[in-house]
């Protein structure tokens, strides 16, 4: 167990629900679930979830910390918001799923190499650099996320699309040299660092 995870587990003991309420985006909503399952049935990627959202909620209440945080399921969220608008208890399910994924990622117990986890990381890194996402760099990063050899393969596989997009002026090869960015990229970086610091403090992360 890594440090952050160890500390969290030690601090909350068996009360995983409390941990989720304190530290996960919209986690205080979890307890309001009444197990109707409409979220599970509404998700476009539902068939690929090992644990449906409502089941994850039950698992949280039952203290199944490791199973939840190491689950692949919430990384399947496409942010389509079907679950949110249908939930009879108005749980912000999309956000809770995002929050759980983020928390698992932060504690570094989310599944290693989970593709969405990697893509999300790369996306964030891309935006933090300049304040705006550079689609080309981001795409290349995505292709090379599994290593150089795999990246070449991915890139070759997708090169048809890439070429077509370039032809359609929707992928600019010059972006690799710099591309769009915010003037105040520095301020943005500082601002994000501050936000993280405040949030960590509020959530009781000591490190």
């Amino acid at each position, binding site marked *: 167990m890594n440090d952050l995870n160890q500390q969290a587990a030690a601090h909350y003991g068996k009360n995983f629900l409390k941990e989720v309420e304190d530290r996960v985006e919209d986690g205080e909503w979890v307890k309001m679930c009444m*197990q109707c*399952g409409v979220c599970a*049935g509404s998700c476009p990627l*539902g068939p690929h979830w090992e644990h449906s959202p409502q089941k994850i909620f039950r698992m949280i209440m039952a203290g199944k910390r490791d199973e939840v945080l190491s689950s692949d399921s919430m990384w399947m969220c496409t942010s389509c918001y079907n679950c949110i608008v249908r939930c009879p208890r108005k749980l912000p399910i999309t956000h809770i799923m995002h929050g759980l994924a983020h928390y698992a990622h932060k504690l570094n117990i989310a599944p290693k190499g989970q593709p969405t986890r990697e893509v999300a990381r790369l996306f964030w890194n891309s935006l933090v650099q300049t304040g705006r996402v550079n689609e080309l760099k981001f795409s290349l990063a995505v292709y090379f996320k599994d290593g150089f050899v795999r990246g070449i393969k991915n890139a070759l596989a997708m090169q048809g699309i890439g070429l077509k997009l370039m032809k359609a002026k929707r992928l600019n090869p010059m972006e690799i040299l710099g591309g769009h960015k915010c003037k105040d990229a520095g301020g943005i970086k500082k601002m994000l660092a501050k936000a993280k610091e405040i949030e960590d403090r509020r959530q009781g992360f000591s490190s």
Partner: protein
Amino acid sequence: MTSSIATNQTILVVGGGISGITAALEAAECGKQVILVERDATLGGRTALLYRYFPKMCHPTCGLEINLRRLKGNRNVRVMTMAEVLGVSGQRGDYAVKLKISPRYVNAKCTACGDCAAAVEAQIDNPYEYGLAKTKAAYLPHAMAYPMQYVLDPSIIGTADADKARAACKYDAIDLDMRDETVEIKAGAIVWATGWKPYDAAKIQPYGYDRFANVITSVEFERLANPHGPTGGKLLRPSDGKEARNIAFIQCAGSRDENHLRHCSRICCMASLKQTHYVREAYGEAAKSTIYYIDIRVIDRLEDFYLKVQQDPTVSFVKSKVAKIAEDKDGNPVLHGVDTEGYHRYATAHDLVVLAVGMEPETNGIKLPDDILLDSSGFIEGSQDDGMCGAGSATSPLDVNRSVQSATAAALRAIQVVHKTSTVEGAR
């Protein structure tokens, strides 16, 4: 109608469904003067449109028959149909109530012979069939209608059809000159027995009630099963008239849902369990009913009924709030969702889907006197001065049995108001 017949000893009951009829009769049989007003052309309300009651599978019209007989034999109750309350002023023990009487275009001379209906050509959506069937624009609401008088639909007034109806009546019972009337009556106490309405199923968009012909509501299904109903009691689905043998019942259609009705409507679980009997009755072992539910809420000794349905091999239960309904190429509704007991995904086609729609207070959208206290769903909790009270499903989602209890209690509350008025006056 003048205000002189009613006094501050009169109890006004608003709404002529099972609760209103009960409140009126129970008070009248204690010797009190009662005015029973009903917005519709007949007494009977929603229960008169049900086929059977749970758990006995007996017929609502049986109880209605007894109540109507009580009413016919009791001169303490004065019934006013097509009468709507426009406003209430005054206070406990001394109310003035303004009523709007809509024209029926048929007077008390009507013998219910039916000649006017035979003469009229225009057809309207039958308001007593939830639009599942048409009726002539001169019609008797239903076979148990009280008063047993025909009604002319306002749409034909001023047309040749209205004249045909008048010409056909041998008893001078059709009066095309009737107009809206406003009258004021006095009352000492008021019982609001305004009942419920089915939640607008079209608002539950994932279920496509407005898009798919074979998605209907539980109240409509009652009409399909009823021998007096649009299909003569056959369970035929609307899209193609095919026998509906494989039927899905979706619970909490609108209820227990903060996007729709916050409350649990109480009756829907039992209603669906009951309706599986209709399917079983129609098709025997070839029937197939599936109930999709969150919690089966059949409290007290109704548990027996639940157990009986559970033991019926043609009925199965899926613990799931259905996520959405799609339609396949044959017009079958396909239900998508997850059985949460152990997490099983399904996409199941049925012949017909019955939405167990929730109960909304009938008064939602209607201005009630300021004095009346409502809960978060719009049900009546009482009035500030205690001179008015609710009865039956106007107060809470209730089944018939509990509505009648509630109405009986309401009758006593009203009696107390007029009793106190009379003792105070006597003391003066």
